Every structure is written in C-alpha cells, then in structure tokens.
C-alpha cells in the first residue's frame, strides 16, 4: 500500500478514529486503525467492538492495499506535522512496518495484519431516513446532559430515540433520564422513519456522533435496526450497537397537571442559581426557591459553610410555594433555554417539576425536587 494525503484530511480522519478506540484494552488490534487505499481515496476504520467509525478521504493512491497501525500514535504524529504538508503512508506488506513521511520527517510504525481487524457485520436496517445536521444536533445536544452514569440501570446510559405521538401527529423523539431529571426533545418526523424501532443510543456514541454534526448544511443518513444504528455524513460513517434493554415508560413521569406557573429569564435565573450555590460545599447543593406574587427568592443554607439569598423579579401569580432543587440540575436545564423565557410548572414541593422554553412543547424537561 502506498498513498499520499493532505495533512488536514488525514488529521480529521485519524482524529475521529483515535477517539473511538479504547485507551485501555487487552486486544492489541483494537488500538489500531485500519487504513485501506483504493481508487482515489483512503478509508480509516476504527472500532471498540460497540462503535465503528469509517472516515473516507481523497488520496493519491500509488499502490492499493491495506494495513493497521496504532491509532493514537498515528494521530499524535499527524497532529505534530506542519500544517499544509503532504503525508505519504507506505506499507510494503513484508516488513511489518508502515512508514509515515512528510517533508523531512520520517516515521516507521509497527503494523498488525488487516485480516485480524474486526469489521462490524453489516445488517439489515428497518428504517432509513435523512435528517439535517442541525435537527440531529438539537435532539441529542438538548437531551444528553440527562443521561445516567449509574451502571446498575444500564438502560438509562443512553438517549432513547423513537417515534412518538404528539399533537395528533407523529414525531421523532429523543429522551434521556437518570431518575433525577429527564429531557424529552421532539423533531418533525422525517420521511422514511415510520418503521423506526425505539433504540437506546449509548452515551459514547452520542459523543462521537456530535463530531459529525458541526456542518450546518450536512444531511445525515440515519439507519436503524433493533440492534444497531448508523449515521452517515459525507465522507464519514458511524455505526453503533444500541443498548440491549428496555427504556422505562417515561410518559407517566412527565407531569401533566402542574398548574403553578413561573416565567423567568433563563440566563438571569441560571446566573443567580450559580451565585447562591457558591456558599455550599456539599456534593449535591440544594437551592431553595421561594415563590410569591411575581417574586422569586433563591436561597442556600449550608450550616457548615454559610448562607446566600438572591431575589429575582419573575412572572408568578399562583399560591406561594417553597421548593428545593439540586443546583446542578437547575443550571443544566436552564442552560438548555436559548431563545425565550424559561417556564416552570410546579405542583407541590414534593412532586416533579416541568420546565420548557416559552410554550414550546418540543423540548420539555422534568426535574425532581429535593427535600430542603
């Protein structure tokens, strides 16, 4: 194999590959990226057995072929090469080495045979549809903060993507929760998504997917089966197993009868929460919200370290209410609001609270109060 490729194209491809490989793994080949050269392009494939990413880049192929080298090492080398350089990768197949040449730099890397590289089996997908990058970005960006890290509830360690009924029609919906807060984000139903089986997209996949979604104009082809999900952007394909588990029935968690309505400027609210929470050194810092007639008082009382209070002018016209929340959760949901005011709907100090942006029902957050 011998190919020449632009440094920036190589850096992007290898960067994507090295972030998929597990840092600590016992199977040497899994630390490697599979490089295949044919026609006028090179492909770079990496996997951790759950996720596979394939990046294709135009290259000048002098001799077709394939080999595997350590992804992290190759990435480090390419990262340190001067911008704009042309990189030549050569593997003679016999020496067990691949050379990397750029300008006056010359590297020789140990290879492992391409036959040993595990390629994810292709499967039949039950739903294929196309979604624009900004739509997917919104679905996952606004839900991923609520993904659970608790391994005993592994079925919460991802974003549940499925088709749901809303307002008399169907929507493409992403839900994530860790039992303390929940995010439910809807998008218009894309053509072809009708047969979509509900799948739980793992946390790591959500992180990797994000790198495919930076280009606002990109159209992403999404394919879903019971066991796998594939995202194909121009030049790059991400395939992932989905979490084998049943996502809990979240619909009963979302309160529908909450009537006490608070409307507040989300940015001002977040800043105030952040300020008062400073005095508490506890791991889960509780902030108390005291509401009464267009007045919101945020307070923190940490017996060991101090107390803080801040008053905000808000729109609130219901009965007085005192309710406590974990400051971190409040900050996270408030930071999801970027256009309009945040609207909170409360029931009592012990019941889940709902938050949304203005009257936008396509992004809804639920947060469990704390005893204060």
């Amino acid at each position, binding site marked *: 194999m011998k190919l020449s490729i632009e440094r920036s194209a190589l850096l992007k491809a290898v960067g994507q590959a090295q972030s998929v490989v597990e840092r600590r793994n016992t199977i040497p080949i899994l630390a490697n990226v599979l490089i295949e050269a044919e026609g006028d392009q090179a492909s770079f494939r990496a996997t951790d057995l759950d996720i596979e990413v394939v990046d294709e880049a135009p290259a000048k192929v002098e001799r077709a072929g394939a080999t595997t080298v350590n992804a992290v090492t190759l990435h480090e080398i390419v990262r340190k090469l001067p911008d704009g350089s042309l990189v030549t990768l050569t593997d003679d197949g016999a020496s067990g080495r691949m050379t990397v040449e750029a300008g006056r730099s010359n590297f020789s890397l140990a290879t492992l045979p391409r036959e040993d590289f595990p390629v994810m089996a292709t499967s039949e997908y039950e739903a294929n549809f196309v979604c624009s990058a900004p739509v997917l970005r919104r679905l996952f960006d606004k839900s991923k903060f609520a993904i659970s890290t*608790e*391994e*005993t*509830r592994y079925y*919460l360690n991802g974003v549940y993507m499925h088709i749901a009924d809303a307002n008399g029609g169907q929507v493409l919906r992403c839900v994530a*929760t*860790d*039992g*303390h*807060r*929940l995010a439910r984000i809807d998008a218009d139903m894309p053509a072809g998504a009708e047969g979509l089986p509900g799948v739980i997209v793992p946390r790591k996949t959500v992180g990797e997917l994000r790198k495919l979604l930076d280009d606002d104009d990109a159209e992403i082809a999404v394919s879903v089966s019971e066991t796998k999900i594939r995202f194909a952007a121009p030049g790059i394909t991400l395939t992932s197993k989905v979490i084998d588990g049943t996502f*809990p029935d*979240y619909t009963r*968690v979302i309160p529908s009868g909450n009537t006490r309505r608070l409307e507040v400027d989300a940015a001002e609210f977040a800043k105030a929460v952040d300020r008062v929470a400073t005095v508490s050194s*506890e*791991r*889960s810092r*509780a902030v108390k919200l005291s509401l009464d007639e267009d007045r919101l008082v945020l307070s923190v009382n940490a017996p060991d370290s101090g107390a803080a209070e801040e008053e905000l002018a808000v729109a609130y016209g219901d009965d007085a209410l005192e309710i*406590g929340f*974990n400051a971190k959760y409040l900050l996270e949901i408030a930071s999801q609001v970027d256009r309009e005011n945040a609207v909170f709907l409360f029931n009592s100090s*012990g019941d*889940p609270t709902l938050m949304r942006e203005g009257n936008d029902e396509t992004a809804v957050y*639920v947060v*469990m*109060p*704390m*005893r*204060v």
Partner: protein
Amino acid sequence: MPALCRDCLKTFDAGKRCPECGRPRVISHPELFDLSIAHMDCDAFYASVEKRDDPSLRDKPVIIGGGRRGVVSTACYIARIRGVRSAMPMFQALKLCPDAVVVKGRMSAYVEASRQIRAMMDDLTPVIEPLSLDEAFLDLKGTARLHHAPPAVMLARLVKRMEDELGLTGSIGLSHNKFLAKVASDLDKPKGFSIIGKAETASFLKDRPVRLIWGVGGQTQAALDKAGIRTFGDLLRWEKVDLVARFGGMGERLWHLARGEDRRRVSAHAPVKSISNETTFGEDTSDVDILDGHIWRLAENVADRAKAKNKAGRVVTLKLKRSNHSALTRRVSLGDPTQIADRIYRTARGLFDQVSDEGPFRLLGVGISHLSPASTADVEGDLLDPGASLRAGAERASDSIRARFGPDAIVKGRALR
C-alpha cells in the same frame, strides 16, 4: 527505678518482689510514672467470655466461629498453642486442633462484657477510643491528681478489676503515643503489661519488622519489600521526600513512625468510614430467593446502624465469596447518600443481578461508604420510581414502631426468607 506491684498495686523503688505482698508480678521502668497513653487489649476476648460462662470449657481448646464453616473469629490460648489463629478458615483450624470445641458466637454476651469493661475505663479517663469490642486506646494525661495515682497504677487496677469482677483478662501497652502503645500491648500477651519509654524507643524499633505498623498489610508490605525495607532501621536510612515520592501520604507517616513519632490523638470520636455487615451461610447457596433474603437482612442491619450513627452513605458495596473462598465485590455510587434500608437493598440487589457468576456462594456482605451526615441523605426523589419515597416513609414509620415496641414488632416478609 520506679516499680509497681500488679497484685496489690503498691508502688515502690525497684526490686524483684513486692515489699508489701511478696509476690513477683512487678513492673519496673524508668519512665513508669511518666507515660500516659495506653492500649488495652482483652486476651482472647470472645473465648474468655465463653469459658467464664461455661466452666466445663475451661481446660479445652475453644474456637469461636460460625459452625464448621466460616472463619475463626477468636481462638483461646489453648487452641492458639496448636497453631489456630483468628481469621483462619474453620476447616483448617479443626485440622490443627480436632478436639476443639467450636462455639457459635453470642454477640449479645460480648457486647454486655464490653460495656462493663467500658464502664470501668470510663472511671479512669474520658478520653477513650474504642477500636472494637475488646480493645481501646486510653489517654490518661493529667489524671494523676484526680486519682491520686499515676496512670500506670490506674491501668494495673483496671485489668485487676476486669479479672476480679468480670473474670476476663487483658493486656496493657503503655507508651508515649498510640502506635507504640498498641505495639506494646501485644508484646507480652496474655495478661501482659508492657512499657515502651521515650528513651528506649529508637533502640526498641530498630530491628523490628515494619509490619508492626497498624495498617501495613499485604500490599504495603510487598511495596516495602520491593524497596528493601523490612525493619524500622531500614526506614531510617530513607529521606522523607523519597519516602513520600515512593509511598505517597503513607511515606510521610512511615518516616515519622520510624522515629517512634505518632501525633494522632486518642480520640473518643474516631470518624467512621464505612458501615457494613456480612454473613457466612450454613452451606453454600446459589438460591436467589435465599440470597435475596440475606441481602435484605444485611441491608436492614446496615441501615439500622447508619440511622443510629446519624450517617448516610453514597456508595453501596456488595461482596460475595465463592465456594473456593475467592471474593468478588461490586460497588456503585448513588446520586445522593442514603440510610434507607429499602434503597440500600435495591441497590445491592441491582449489583447482585449484574454479577454473571451464578454461585454457589458461601458469604454475602452489604455495606455503605463515603459517609456523610444524615441531613444530606435521601433528599432527591427518583422520577422513575415514584414508590421510593412512599417506601422510605413506610420504613421510617416502621422504625418508630420498632423503637417503641421492640425490634420484632414489625418486620418485612422479605426478612423471613
């Protein structure tokens, strides 16, 4: 040289026998009346309580432990002569000492005896740090004027009272810090009274192995071995910075201990780091229902103790031991700390369900750690488990019923499995 008769408690100036009663149990040491930090360790405590309560056991080797299985928790001195040690698997102990009488522990009797000893120690000083039922540190600094006697005399009186009134013996280590006091109490067991004075500290430690240090177990020992450190003398050759570089925080402690320095105070309120409980089964089991019952009972016991201590834990640990004695532990962090048995049980059960090994198991343990005050516990509800707060409320209600009408007034059906 100041001297003290351990039988009649008379103090005098040197001599091999007591001038008053003529008995030979005399302790003499240049610093005898200057030292005030002591470690009291009962001699084969559980076994001694059993022998006291059942005189027919007096001349027999007695082992306390869970039936034929499990491990030796205490062996009497007769059994120890045959090589039986605590923490030894029972089958091995019985191989060494086939005629041993194995007694299943009577924890309530030990707790009672411990309480009586504690009351006697309370007469000596308010600064007592119990390490377990049968051992404690005591700091008697400044008590001489109150008692009209130096600490050494009061300690000799304590063990004499324990023997006369409770029929239990103990060994005393007296020194100028906790580390050395603990080392000393072990020097002359049983019924020992050993002193390590300031002047002799360096020469005493020099050739002793570093494993004397409380907390130096297998791993630290191996790391020390690798560095060529076996004795305190070896440690003295190391610079402090090098020890810290190699052993971290432990390195600094080692440097000081090598010089016989230990600045830890005897503290009546030593911080508790974890609360746990485990049980060894009568026979190995892989029956999920039986194991589940154990998980519940252990979780409830842990929760009871956490509630009594006003503590809550953020990490729940499940421990399992297979038939071949290999152990397996699983732990998980909760969002907020808990002291609710129901939550500890459900979390431990979740961990259990993730264990791919199907058993059989011989032991099961449940514990909580990363403790914090109870006021921060169980404050966050669970969206996906709306029943959790109801169950927590029911548990608090049962707690108050049990506080009023006794521990068996109300139990969960699960506990009967």
